[in-house]
């Protein structure tokens, strides 16, 4: 090889978590082999084995319980809910709460349901995801292959940034955004998500590109490729797997964000999570639990769907994405 990839061990947990995630498919393949080998050896049905299954089934029920309660509550009329039979299946199934949650549930004075929040979240998530991934990819590429002077130090500080509590940064950022007229605006919240997503996105792409053979890059250089040309025509087309992981991480993370949306989005662009909380926790009069649960499901649909569809890809991103919290 003759080339040593210098490891900036700035943030070990992050680096390690994501390299563990990167190895995930390899490990899974190895595991598939070993479990196939295990199956050949017939596993006897012993009490210990029954215990294993009993534990797993009880645990699975505990994990599924809230989902079940949420679903049945959302399709019950209020008369049934008042009976206090939390776990019972609905007698008179109704979809009315879902309709109400979507278009007429009240957040304080306005009664437009949660649909506005849904579209606000879409409007925030799409540009934030694209922008944060674009910048993360360029950063990762420059850090892995070009390594300009000082970039390593910047990267190390950026990695520490992943651990800074948001509270330390929130107020000064409000002031800065207000000074440039971006506070409480869509571009403002997109910028904020890009800033807070940068450590993880940069790390993700840097690790991915660092694992590519350097010879590839050198050959492209010899052929006269410049910075952007190598990036756009050589690296980007090879980046599909890492981009998929990044999209899953960013869409889930930004969709689920509450605090940043609350502070920076402004009343016109409040994301769905903030509106959901407003609907449920600022109601006056009788609380419509069925509508509340329907609204909660509606808010969770996007990340849950992404999770169920993407499966292993989601798991890959999870370790590195978790840093954002």
């Amino acid at each position, binding site marked *: 090889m003759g080339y040593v990839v210098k490891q900036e061990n700035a943030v070990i947990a992050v680096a390690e978590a994501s390299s563990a*995630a990167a190895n995930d498919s390899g490990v899974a393949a190895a595991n598939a082999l070993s479990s196939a080998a295990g199956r050949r050896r017939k596993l006897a049905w012993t009490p210990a084995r029954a215990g294993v299954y009993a534990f797993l089934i009880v645990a699975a029920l505990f994990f599924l319980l809230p989902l079940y309660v949420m679903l049945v509550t959302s399709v019950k009329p209020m008369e049934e809910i008042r009976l206090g039979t939390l776990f019972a299946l609905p007698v008179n199934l109704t979809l009315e709460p879902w309709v109400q949650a979507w278009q007429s549930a009240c957040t304080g004075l306005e009664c437009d349901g949660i649909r506005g929040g849904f579209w606000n979240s879409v409007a925030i998530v799409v540009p934030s995801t694209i922008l944060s991934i674009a910048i993360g990819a360029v950063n990762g590429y420059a850090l892995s292959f070009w*390594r300009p002077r000082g970039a390593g130090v910047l990267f190390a500080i950026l990695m*520490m940034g992943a*651990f800074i509590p948001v509270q330390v*940064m929130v107020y000064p950022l409000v002031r800065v955004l207000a000074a440039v007229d971006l506070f409480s605006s869509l571009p403002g919240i997109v910028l904020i998500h890009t800033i807070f997503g940068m450590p993880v996105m940069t790390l993700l792409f840097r690790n991915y590109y660092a694992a590519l053979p350097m010879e590839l890059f050198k050959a492209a250089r010899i052929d006269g490729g410049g910075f952007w040309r190598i990036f756009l025509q050589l690296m980007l087309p090879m980046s599909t797997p890492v981009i998929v992981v990044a999209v899953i991480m960013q869409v889930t993370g930004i969709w689920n964000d509450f605090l940043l949306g609350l502070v920076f989005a402004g009343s016109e662009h409040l994301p769905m999570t903030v509106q959901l909380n407003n609907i449920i926790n600022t109601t006056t009069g009788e609380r419509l*639990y069925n509508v509340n649960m329907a609204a909660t499901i509606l808010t969770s649909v996007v990340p849950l769907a992404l999770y169920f569809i993407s499966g292993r890809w989601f798991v890959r991103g999870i370790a590195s994405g978790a840093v954002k919290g």
Partner: protein
Amino acid sequence: MTNAVIKKRAGVSIAAYIALIPMALTVLLAYLGTMLWTARVSVSSSRTFPNSDFVGASQYIRLFNNERWLLSLQNVAVYGVLFIAACLIIGFLLAVFIDQKVMAEGALRTIFLYPYAMSFVATGLIWQWILNPELGIQEVLRKLGFTEARFDWIVDQDMAIYTIVIATVWQASGLVMALMLSGLRGIDEELWKAARIDGIPRWRVYVSIVLPMLGPSVSTAFVLLFVMVVKVFDSVVAMTQGGPGTASEVPAKFIMDYLFGRANIGLASAASIVLLATVLAIVAPLYYVRTRRADKGM
């Protein structure tokens, strides 16, 4: 090799520097700049607007005389210990049991991890409903004949913080499971053969050999969970709004309230610097140890 590096350095195009401008600005302004700004404000007498005077440590002294702050520290300590311990134990057990070559492994993994895809807000709201004292689990227990059953933690001053533990453990222990499972899958099959030949019981191998081998996974999980503890905010706001009263107040919420509700940014800045110092005090040594270990390993 050094030659190649030097040549490459010389060949770094100006475009590479330009491309890193967004990162440089983010690091300098958004991360370092805000941190310095907050540190500066924390030693000023700022209330609604930032002042540029210097009052020494008096905001910090006021902070540690503030009962709400002390309560929120106490809460986050209780919450943090229970949350991290419960997630690590449950996550480890789930991973070990799933690793016993069970049927429907994929389905089980999916079930244990799906809460992690949900927001803290949704998590808090679901559990707020399940633990609702009038119509939730308490009522179900009473209907079942336990007429004296009490499970009204969410409205109980002394117990409210534990409900947040329950909800967030449900949300996050799948993450620990996923991390531990990938650690377990990296362990050599030979270990099991050797243990079987020596007649060591399986649980013994897990406790005495496998668990120490999972060190890196455990410390990764610990750091991730610890960061969640420091940041805990959404789930408290959604579940209890810090109540009843101020019983489930946490530092992150305290700071947000003083920044935006009570307009006392001096005090809030002092509080966030304390929070930052706590994070660094816990995370930095872990890093240091692991960096050294990694260096030796190479």
